[in-house]
C-alpha cells in the first residue's frame, strides 16, 4: 500500500486569463513523490454530477511547502466547478499517477513543444531541469497558442533564461501558424540539433500527431504526454488506451508519457 487518497487543501485560486486558472494545493504525498509528467486524478465535488474524476498534469511543486500547482482551462462542467473553488476548501486527490519524462543527461539538449495547456507539465519539466543546474541555454521551448491573450506564464518562462520560440495561429504574436510548422522549419533548416537532444511535447492530439510524424521522419528521441478519457486513472479498466506499435497501451498507467515514434494517433 504505497498510494493513498488524500484530502488536499486549496491554498490559492488564481484566474490567469480567459477561462485559465491556477490552483495551489497543499498535499504532502503528491508534492513529495511527484515527477515531471505525472498527473493527479481529482474529484471536483462530492456529487454524482460530474461522477468521474478529472485528470490534471502536475504543474509545479514546492516540496518544502508540501504544495503543488495545477494549471487548467475551463472546458466543461468539471473544470467550471474547479475554477469556482475557494481557498481553504478540500480536494479529494489521487496521485501522483502515471509515468514521468525521462530527463536529458547534463551534456544533452532539451527541446520542448507546448501547445496551449500543454505548457502545464512542460513548465514543470523546465523548472526541475533548472533546479538540477541544467544550463538554461541548452533548453528551447516552442510554445504555440491560438491567439496572443492565451499566452500563459510568458514572463515566468522568459525569466528562466531558456530559449523561447512563440507562435500564434492568428499571427497576433510571434510566428503566424502552428507551432509544429515553426518547429518543422527550424529542423529542416538545421537550426536545431537533433543529435544528443531530447525532445518533449504536450498539447492537443492533432499537434501530437504531427509531432509523432516529424519524430519518425527525423528520427527524434521524442517523448509526448497524451490525454485520454480516464475512468479509473490507475490502470484497472482499460478505458483510456491509445494505439501504439506494440498494441493498445493504457495512457494512465503505461503513460501518459510515450515515445512519439511508437504511438499511432488518428
Amino acid at each position, binding site marked *: 500500500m504505497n498510494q493513498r*487518497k488524500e484530502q488536499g487543501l486549496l491554498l490559492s485560486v488564481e484566474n490567469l486569463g480567459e477561462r485559465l486558472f491556477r490552483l495551489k494545493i497543499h498535499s504532502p504525498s503528491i508534492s513529495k513523490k511527484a515527477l515531471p509528467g505525472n498527473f493527479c486524478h481529482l474529484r471536483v465535488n462530492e456529487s454524482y454530477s460530474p*461522477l468521474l474524476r478529472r485528470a490534471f498534469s502536475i504543474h509545479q511543486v514546492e516540496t518544502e511547502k508540501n504544495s503543488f500547482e495545477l494549471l487548467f482551462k475551463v472546458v466543461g462542467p468539471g473544470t467550471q466547478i474547479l475554477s469556482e473553488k475557494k481557498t481553504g476548501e478540500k480536494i479529494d486527490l489521487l496521485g501522483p499517477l502515471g509515468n514521468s519524462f525521462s530527463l536529458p543527461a547534463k551534456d544533452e539538449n532539451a527541446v520542448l513543444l507546448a501547445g496551449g495547456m500543454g505548457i502545464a507539465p512542460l513548465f514543470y519539466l523546465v523548472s526541475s531541469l533548472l533546479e538540477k543546474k541544467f544550463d538554461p541555454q541548452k533548453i528551447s521551448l516552442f510554445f504555440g497558442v491560438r491567439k496572443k491573450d492565451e499566452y500563459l506564464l510568458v514572463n515566468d518562462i522568459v525569466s528562466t533564461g531558456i530559449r523561447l520560440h512563440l507562435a500564434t495561429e492568428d499571427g497576433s504574436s510571434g510566428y503566424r501558424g502552428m507551432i509544429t510548422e515553426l518547429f518543422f522549419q527550424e529542423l529542416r533548416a538545421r537550426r536545431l540539433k537533433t543529435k544528443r537532444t531530447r525532445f518533449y511535447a504536450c498539447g492537443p492530439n492533432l499537434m501530437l500527431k504531427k509531432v509523432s510524424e516529424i519524430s519518425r521522419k527525423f528520427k527524434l528521441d521524442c517523448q509526448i504526454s497524451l490525454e485520454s478519457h480516464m*475512468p479509473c486513472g490507475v*490502470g484497472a479498466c482499460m478505458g483510456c*488506451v491509445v494505439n501504439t506499435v506494440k498494441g*493498445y497501451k493504457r495512457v494512465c498507467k503505461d503513460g501518459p508519457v510515450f515515445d512519439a515514434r511508437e504511438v499511432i494517433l488518428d
Partner: protein
Amino acid sequence: MIPDLSVKIGKVKFSNPVLVASGTFGYGEEYGAFFDLNELGSIITKSITLNPREGHLPPRTCETPSGMLNAIGLANVGVKRFIQEKLPFLRNLKTKVIVNVAGSSIDEYVEVVKKLEGKKGIDLLEINISCPNVKQGGITFGSDPKCAYDCIKAVRDNSTYPIIAKLSPNVADIVEIALAVEEAGADAVSLINTLVGMAIDLEKRKPRLSNITGGLSGPAIKPVALAMVWKTAQKVKIPVIGLGGIMNTQDALEFILAGASMIQVGTGNFVDPECSVKIVEGLKEYCQEKKLKRILDLRGKLKIFTAD
C-alpha cells in the same frame, strides 16, 4: 459484539458480502496500492476469454448523467497468460478469488473453464453470459433462457468450482433467465451487467464511443438494478448477488433489503478506490447500530405496503 458479515456460496465462505465487479478492478494489482485487498469478501477479475483480446478502438468510455458508458470490448490477456502472469498475485491473497469467464461460443466457455480447472488460487467462477453467441447469429447467451441454460449447463459439467451466472439486464424478463441458470446448476446469480446505451457528440455529429453503443453503469442504473434484484430474489432459491450503481453503504444495504446476499462495487471503484472497503466497514457499523447479529438477517426484509 462483532457482527457476522460472512456469507456462503456453495461451499465457499466469504468473510463479508462485498465484492468488486468484473472489469472495474483489473486483476487486482492496481488497487492493491490503495488498501489491503484482504479486507474484501472477494475480488472478481476482468472477463477472461480463450485468446487474448485487444478490445475495441478508442474512445472506449464517456461520462453520462450520473453514470458512464463503456465499450472496452473485453480487452484481456487470455486464459493462458492470466494463469501465468495474473494468478500468482491473486493466489497470495487471503481473500477469495472469482474468475470471470466470457466467450463467443459454448465451446469457448468450456475450453476456458477446463483450463482454469484445479488451478490453485481460484475459488469460484463467474460466467458472463452477456456476450454475443456467434453461432446463434450474435444473440447474447444471456437474452434467451434456452441459450443461458445450455451455456451454464456446459460449464457446470466441465468445472468443479462453484458457479455464479452473471445476468444481463438487456432482456424481456430477467427472472426467466435466472430460473433457467438455476436449473442448469448455477450456485448463485449476479445482476446486473451494464445496460445498452449510447451518447452523441452533437457538434461533431458523431457517437461518443467508437463502438457506437456501450454499457451504461453507475448510479444512473441503480433503480433498474434494485428492481431486477428484488424480482429475481422472489423467485430463485440460490443466492442473488446485487450490483449496479452501488457507491456507498446505504446503496449496499438497499440491495440486501431487496434480497441480495452479496453485493459488488463496479464504477464506484473509479470514483473512490476505497469505496468497497468503506462499505465493509459501513455494514459492520450498521449491524452494530441496529443490533443485528448477522448481516444476512437483513436480507429480503423489505417491508411491503399492505392494504389496510
